[in-house]
């Protein structure tokens, strides 16, 4: 049995069902309990499970994550929330110096099975501190899994997989997709494995590698280009770490042209890593340079509407990138 719900509802459903299924699971974060979350993602969970499983924390991201790390060492499965990716920085010490390294520095004696839910990305004029998409910071750290679904189906399935994963997982939820991403979601239990990319559209002429909010935009552009006789393959990289090199290289070898599209800033963005991988492992298969359409190297995202619009990647910018690459 499946029902049509949006990503926000899918995440709520995943949390509710997993907390029913596994008594070790509990959630913690700012405003998640009494308020049900600032976006209502955790709505109803406090009533259903009580304070023991749904914890409103003090305003301190460091201890939110540390409390999760420590309690996971006791065998629990905490799912802490970072309310906005812009506020993940106070927790970075715990994420990078502790969570990612705990297993390694103890040679497996300790582990850290936590899933950190993070609300990220551009969202209708949210300004410089409610708009950041900084998943790539964490891809650089061995020991952390980093995922960002773009559909309601993937959101529920990947969150369930993340909670059951023995590694620390950073689960990025794009705020613009909470209600926008709607689709059929099984009512029961299922998982979507962390790791494999998704071929959203098959094509022969050119590959778009993308993730997050840009997935749908890329599909829209691919649809437009198909009318012009250019057949585009859209590969959604749902798991940024560990990267699904096989799927990426398979697509590159098939089409010979790659355009990387991401919302996040350009320099040292995820696209830089993808470009390096493709250049190293599929150089002979390329018929053109690896190109990127990305956010600018400008603090994301200035508030005034014209600046906000100028900052963001949109279908026009992607189209321009495709046209340039297709013509090469």
């Amino acid at each position, binding site marked *: 049995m499946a029902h049509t719900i949006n990503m926000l509802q899918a995440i709520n459903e995943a949390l509710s069902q997993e907390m029913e299924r596994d008594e070790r699971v509990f959630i913690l974060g700012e405003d998640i309990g009494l308020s049900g979350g600032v976006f209502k993602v955790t709505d109803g969970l406090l009533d259903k499970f009580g304070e023991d499983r749904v914890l409103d924390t*003090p305003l301190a991201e460091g201890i939110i994550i*540390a409390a999760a790390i*420590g*309690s996971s060492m006791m*065998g629990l499965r905490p799912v802490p929330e970072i309310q906005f990716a812009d506020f993940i920085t106070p927790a970075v*010490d*715990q994420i990078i110096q502790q969570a990612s390294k705990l297993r390694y*520095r*103890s040679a497996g004696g300790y582990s850290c099975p936590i899933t950190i839910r993070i609300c990220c990305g551009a969202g209708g004029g949210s300004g410089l501190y409610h708009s950041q998409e900084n998943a790539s910071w964490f891809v650089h750290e061995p*020991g952390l899994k980093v995922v960002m679904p773009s559909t309601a189906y993937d959101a529920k399935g990947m969150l369930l997989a993340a909670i059951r994963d023995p590694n620390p997982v950073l689960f990025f939820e794009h705020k613009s997709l909470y209600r926008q991403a709607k689709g059929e979601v099984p009512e029961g239990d299922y998982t979507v494995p962390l790791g494999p990319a998704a071929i959203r559209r098959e094509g022969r002429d050119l590959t778009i590698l993308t993730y997050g909010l840009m997935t749908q935009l890329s599909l829209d552009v691919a649809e437009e280009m198909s009318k012009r006789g250019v057949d585009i393959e859209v590969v959604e990289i749902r798991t940024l770490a560990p990267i699904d090199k096989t799927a990426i290289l398979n697509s590159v070898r098939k089409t010979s042209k790659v355009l990387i599209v991401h919302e996040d800033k350009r320099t040292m963005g995820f696209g830089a890593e993808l470009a390096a991988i493709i250049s190293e492992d599929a150089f002979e298969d390329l018929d053109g340079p690896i190109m990127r359409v990305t956010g600018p190297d400008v603090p994301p995202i200035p508030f005034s509407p014209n600046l906000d619009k100028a900052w963001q990647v949109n279908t026009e910018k992607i189209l321009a990138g495709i046209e340039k690459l297709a013509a090469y």
Partner: protein
Amino acid sequence: MASKSSRALIEIEAEKSSRSPELLLNLYTILVKCRMCDEKARILFRQGKYKGNFYSGVGQEATEVGTAYSLRKDDWIAPSHRDWTANIIKGAPLKFCFAQLFAKVTSPDRGRSSPAHMGYPELHVITPASSIAAQLNIGTGVALGIKKLHQDSVVVAYCGDGATSFGGFHEALNFAGVHKLPILYVVQNNLWAESVPLRLQTALKDLSDRAKAYGFPGIPLDGNDILAVYDAAQTAIARARSGQGPTLLECKTYRWYGHSEIDPAKYRMKEEVETWKKRDPIVLFEKQLIEKKLLTDAKKAEIAAAIVKEIDEAVEFAEQSPYPEASELTDHIWG
């Protein structure tokens, strides 16, 4: 809950007035063991037997032994870089403690962490990181887990005076206070955070004052008085175990040597060092034991000789152990 804690406290009061000779000698023995192991670790480093660094706790033994001696196997220790001997007190075999210094494959972390950053999972000693105050945060998380699982283990988390300035100190203790977590925070105030003196670290004279901000007791102690530390720790551990929440024990003490073995500590005045050395926690305790006729020169020598033998065997084991192979570099990143 109330009757459980009252009973625990009554038992502690009774114990205070009738501490068994066995307990006193055991405390003495483990103090001496920590001292001798620490001094041996220093010697081995200076001999070039291992690389990296070592953070000696000589002079501070009573703060470690007094707080950790009576912990159960299931209790947790969250150590910092200067608490290598916490592993010894918790019961880790010496051979693995010295293998840790040498970064051999037989160390608990197979040579991944630096010499003094030793943890011991089977005995619930959390492998530390260099990040200051991080162990307070993780230890607080473990305490949350203990409470959620309705267990009665406790966590003892150590830090220095410098760590009390760190934001993470505030976050950890605040959280523990809110949830009355089963944790004991031991602040080893040795007046120096590497080379930064206390007067530049904080406006406070007693770091235990900080506990008021978190809603639980903070107790300043003579950290070189083993029985004062032991008694205060017993009370705090009983509080924690019976659900009454955290305690901050500020153990005022002194490290004899530099911040690390490569630090000559020239920023300290000789007079200060000499004054504190005269308050050697082991010598102070010996005087009490001799007065009680529990310790003689012969007994002292017997205890020391046994420890020397144990240390020599442990060092031999560590020296003979192989290093980890390069092929295991990428092991244990993922589960």
